[in-house]
């Protein structure tokens, strides 16, 4: 059992989809339950996140590991359903770079990391209208992540929070802000719930707040 757990953990860190599939098949043959297999892979994904944060692994590698996990979930799906262990998404998150701002990369990395961490991510892209964030929240997103890379656009994050207050929805949604000019002090000032210095930190805080 311990060998199979380690093999799953190692396969996820090695981020090769066929290797992950093979480790899952071996674990199943050895009698590991679907829940145990997923836990072992989850530990591997946590390490992948740490290696990403330290610049030892990169986004395609994280995605490849996540793809392996996703495939495993399909394989394990029937057993999970039968056992009642089928996991649900942590939360639905609307993500976007605020209107007037076309910087995309940091926000996209953050979206991907959240997706890998089990969030249902609705990434609206860049130059996203305030109304588009509000619409997604009205349609069920309980978290809202806004990125701004310019001092002239970071004020839109505050505007969206104010709209949420005006429309009586502020307490129903967790607001995350980030981007180069955004700081913890600014996040506190505009009343955001989470400030993320980078994608990994944002994901960790999002996981912590939804646990």
């Amino acid at each position: 059992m311990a060998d199979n757990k380690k093999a799953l953990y190692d396969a996820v860190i090695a981020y090769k989809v066929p290797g992950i599939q093979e480790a899952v098949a071996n674990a199943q043959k050895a009698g590991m339950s679907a829940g145990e297999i997923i836990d072992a892979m989850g530990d591997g994904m946590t390490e992948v996140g740490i290696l990403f944060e330290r610049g030892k692994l990169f986004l395609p590698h994280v995605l490849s590991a996540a793809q392996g996990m996703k495939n495993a979930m399909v394989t394990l799906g029937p057993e999970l359903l039968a056992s009642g262990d089928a996991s649900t998404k942590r939360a639905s998150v609307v993500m976007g770079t605020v209107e007037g701002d076309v910087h995309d990369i940091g926000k996209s990395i953050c979206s991907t990391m959240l997706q890998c961490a089990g969030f249902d991510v609705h990434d609206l892209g860049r130059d996203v209208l305030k109304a588009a964030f509000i619409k997604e929240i009205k349609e069920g997103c309980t978290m809202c992540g806004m990125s701004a890379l310019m001092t002239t656009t970071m004020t839109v994050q505050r505007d969206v929070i104010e709209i949420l207050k005006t429309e009586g929805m502020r307490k129903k949604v967790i607001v995350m802000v980030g981007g180069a000019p955004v700081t913890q002090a600014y996040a506190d000032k505009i009343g955001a719930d989470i400030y993320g210095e980078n994608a990994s930190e944002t994901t960790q805080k999002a996981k912590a707040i939804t646990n």
Partner: protein
Amino acid sequence: MSKFYTRMGDGKRVMLTKEQIVNDIQAGFADAADMAGVADLTANEIEQLFEIISDKNRIVGVEPGNEVVVSYDIGQLDFTGDNGNSGNGIDVGRRESALLHERALGADTFELAHADYSIKPVKPIIANEMQTMEEIQSEIIIPYFYGAMPNSGLYYAPDGPYGNPADLMREFKIEEAMQAAELTADHLARDIEYVAPKLVSAGADGFNFDTTASAGDADFVGTLKGVEALRKECPNTYILLGMAGESVMGIHGSIEYKGKVVAGTYPHQQVKLAEQAGANVFGPVVNTNTSKSLAWNLARSVAFVKECVKVANIPCHVNMGMGVGGIPMWETAPNDAVTRCNKAMVEIAKVDGV
């Protein structure tokens, strides 16, 4: 216990004790050593850094004889841009701005730039840029370059012909994302090869590639290939290659330059690639963490840059400004912090220029 006036990375004023400052200096060094394997600073250097940070004067400077070259990026945009674009909102022409930098601000070099400050949009207006370069060169004395960001983000959808890796990766189309990045690198190199020699032929003393690798590792590889082509075509031109961040983001993850994976490289590794490509000057960048103190950020920046200078065979002009080089992330960077960070870079990291 005495407290010293200093800053946080977001520019907030704080008063810290010597013990707090020294602890932050050591923690900043340790972070750089941990991330990039760079050498720790000596006890003397830690004390020197503390002396610089805790200096009672609002403005500090280097000792006579330690002055270094000051080269500028972003061209006239530091006047004409709005304050979200590192500018001051002053509408002056490119000629006037160049002469003001030379004759009023003491710039040792300056550059002509397009309003978008990216390589790609220069292509359709290359003739205008060449003409302006020639006109200003007839008046200016200091080395006058052309400057632009490689900015390979402009080659991805929706701005360019290739799929956006961020979108493709979210759909788990990893191979396609990597291929798009490779195509972009080649396209960027071709555009540099088209644009840069023309500006040199119009009289530019050199070319400044600013904010290199802002769109990740393929951006860096495309720029290095472009630098290589420019060096081949213009053997005597002056090439500055400045970075966007301390570590190259792995949007592709495996793309190589001359057999070396560039993702995750730090300044002391980046400079070797710049040398191989044919750059004359390298501009290392270290990002500021807004939640940490000036002492932590400056110590970390100095550790990275010192190692870069140590291994470099070409001059290093460190990027110093809003949110880089230990300077707080603040629209108008506070002068007490700006001057302290510059002094430390010159006297401890031993940079050749700023």
